[in-house]
């Protein structure tokens, strides 16, 4: 399209020549632009419209990020003047004996949540999409835990997890001759107990996403599969999952990022105990910052925050690259 059509009319050629001249002169015209012409052309109003967003982002997102980077290189109690310590905070975090414990626990939480927590919303959404009656009611029920304030949910589950024989779960399991189990009071069962509650609390949101995505799946594909004699499982495996793969990949990375930053459950249920069995990376960051009443180690806290952010950024990039062909193929 960039070459001139040999059969074009003279008028068209002339017009083209004029346009080319105008294009050639364009940079010269732009160079003469003055503040007055910038205002006249709407530059000021654009800036005014942008300003609230710039201020909000600047104050609440960009400034804290820059401040975090600076603090990670400082020793400060936020009252006295800070001193520069280079990368000492990073070194301190890496050599902290609790650091590998926190990384291991976080990885274990993320893995358990992925293995058990990830398929459940998908399964629930597929089943619910097959239900013809009261689908709205089931959606509402699935979403209900998301609506319950997290602190309330944790308090509720704390009573479920009561380790005495009269605890809710222990009573129910007792009916079939099981238990009582220590739940949160044991180093072995504490972390899986947190995963269970977390899955219950968060699955509703993902179910809604899957239900929305399922409405986009072409019904003719299911009809064609039925004609070919496919049952429910084959329809799910060969139609639903391939059609949802873009959404599935996005929810998976969101879940991994979310579980890598798990804080609420270990903080409210166990404070990282028993004996650091539920200490996660974010809880360790919190402990660095606020665990000591004499003033936190804010340098170490921000250093570990940056390390986590860096890891998640790299992980996300690798994940997106590795799954690019699947999500678009």
């Amino acid at each position: 399209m960039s070459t001139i059509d040999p059969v074009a009319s003279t008028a068209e050629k002339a017009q083209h020549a004029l346009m080319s001249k105008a294009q050639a002169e364009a940079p010269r015209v732009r160079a003469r632009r003055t503040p007055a012409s910038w205002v006249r052309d709407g530059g000021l109003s654009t800036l005014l419209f942008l300003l609230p967003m710039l201020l909000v982002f600047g104050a609440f997102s960009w400034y804290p990020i820059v401040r975090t980077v600076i603090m990670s290189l400082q020793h400060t109690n936020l009252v006295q003047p800070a001193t520069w310590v280079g990368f000492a905070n990073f070194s301190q975090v890496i050599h902290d004996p609790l650091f590998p414990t926190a990384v291991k626990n976080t990885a274990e939480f993320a893995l358990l949540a992925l293995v058990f927590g990830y398929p459940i919303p998908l399964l629930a959404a597929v089943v619910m999409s097959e239900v013809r009656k009261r689908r709205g009611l089931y959606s509402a029920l699935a979403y209900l835990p998301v609506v319950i304030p997290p602190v309330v949910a944790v308090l509720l589950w704390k009573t479920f997890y009561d380790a005495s024989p009269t605890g809710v779960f222990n009573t129910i399991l007792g009916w079939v001759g099981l238990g009582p189990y220590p739940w949160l009071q044991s180093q072995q069962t504490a972390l899986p107990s947190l995963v269970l509650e977390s899955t219950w609390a968060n699955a509703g949101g993902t179910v809604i996403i899957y239900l929305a995505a399922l409405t986009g799946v072409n019904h003719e594909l299911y009809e064609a599969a039925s004609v070919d004699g496919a049952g429910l499982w084959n329809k799910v495996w060969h139609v639903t999952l391939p059609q949802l793969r873009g959404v599935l990949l996005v929810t998976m990375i969101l879940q991994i990022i979310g579980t890598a930053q798990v804080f609420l459950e270990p903080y409210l249920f166990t404070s990282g105990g028993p004996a650091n069995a539920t200490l996660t990376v974010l809880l360790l960051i919190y402990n660095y910052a606020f665990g000591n009443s004499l003033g936190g180690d804010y340098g170490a806290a921000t250093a570990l925050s940056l390390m986590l952010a860096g890891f998640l950024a790299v992980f996300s990039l690798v994940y997106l690259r590795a799954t690019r062909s699947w999500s678009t193929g």
Partner: protein
Amino acid sequence: MKSKGRAMKSIRMGMTVAAVSLLAVSAGSISRAATSSSPTVTISVASLIPGSTKAATQQFANQVTQFEKANPSIKVQSVEYQWTGPTFAAKLAAGTLPTVFTVPFTDARTLGDNGQLADLTAEVKALPYYSKYNPAVIAEGTDSKGQIVAVPTAAYAQALHYNRKLFVAAGLNPNKPPTTWAQVESDAKQIATKTGQAGYAEMGKDDNTAGWILTTLVYSLGGRMETGIGTKATATVDNPQTVAALNMLKKMRWTDNSMGSNFSYGWSDINQAFAAGQVGMYVSGSDVYTNLVQASNIDPSIYGLAPIPLAANKNAGVLGGGTLAAVRPDANPATAAAAVKWIDYYYEQPLINKAQAIRNARTLTASKQPVGVPALPVFDKTQYDLANTWIKPYINVPLNQMKPFSTGIFAQKLIPEPEASTQSVYHSLDAVVEAVLTDQNANIPSLLQQAQSSAQSAIRQGT
């Protein structure tokens, strides 16, 4: 042109109105400034802990009203407050602490050295009763430069709190609480067997309380958690008494099964569980009865207080601590002066001034708040006894049920909390206690070795 003229006219009119308004506002401010003789100072003060009863809140409000009446130039704003390690650190960093707040004995000196508390030396030394302070107690609020950065308001000794009702239900004599740790073990076992409740429970949370109570046990057996002072102190958490204390807990937890099913109690949780009749015995500060009434609605008839059993070891003693009132470091001189006035009125006068002590006790009794809870002297023992005689008619706590403590405590050796990096030393022990209570095969020597290393590292860093 006509419309343009009208627009100009309205702009001029608007400007005139704005100028007149501005002048009026300025004149108002000037006249207000001219009429007020002394500027009002507003201070925010730590009031009661969150969750306190309405009666307790009302009683505090009455005290504020009385103070403001006596000091018309000071306005007091009450802020609910409870000292916990993590929330205190967050509030300190965010600058959201009230003007007057309280800190434990363990923290004031270091906070002062770090420039995180206001210097109150001049104001405190000007108090008429300054010379009467117990030197060891006022030293807890004095930093390394000799500046007074916090004022002692209460002192306590660790004590054994026991549920008389559960003692009776288990066939034990509620007037004869255990006096040895072996008796604690056997009584706990009997309570657990006969009542199904925890015979003995212990704070086991990862918020330094687990380490605090373990240290109490170790002191009572004759051990210490550190020697020396400051960053040159040596951690000694890995000692024979700590091993003995942990083995005792292990036996009660796993062999006797007398510690119930909750091993992650924090300070408030265990108070609530005790008031709810789920705990036979536990260790906490001798003054905890106030909280049991204000936040946990305890039935006074179930309450019993005894001294901590001490081993037959010349170093055995009872861990003592206390609370100090401090002021934000950014307080200006006028605010700091007003803050010390409040500290004097609210915390110190009831201990030193007969009229105020009686007025305070009368107000507390009227709102059904505890009066006469056993404590240790902030001034001297004579002053403490005298103050108790002033308020005798108003004492409403079950003193008879606290007799084992009040008669026994002054015969016990009082040992202050570890001085260097106290909270960090406690924190290093949290995981050890948690492990022993939640893992039957916990390797005590290995756990203590790790705790020793982290405690020593914290001491070196001064954190």
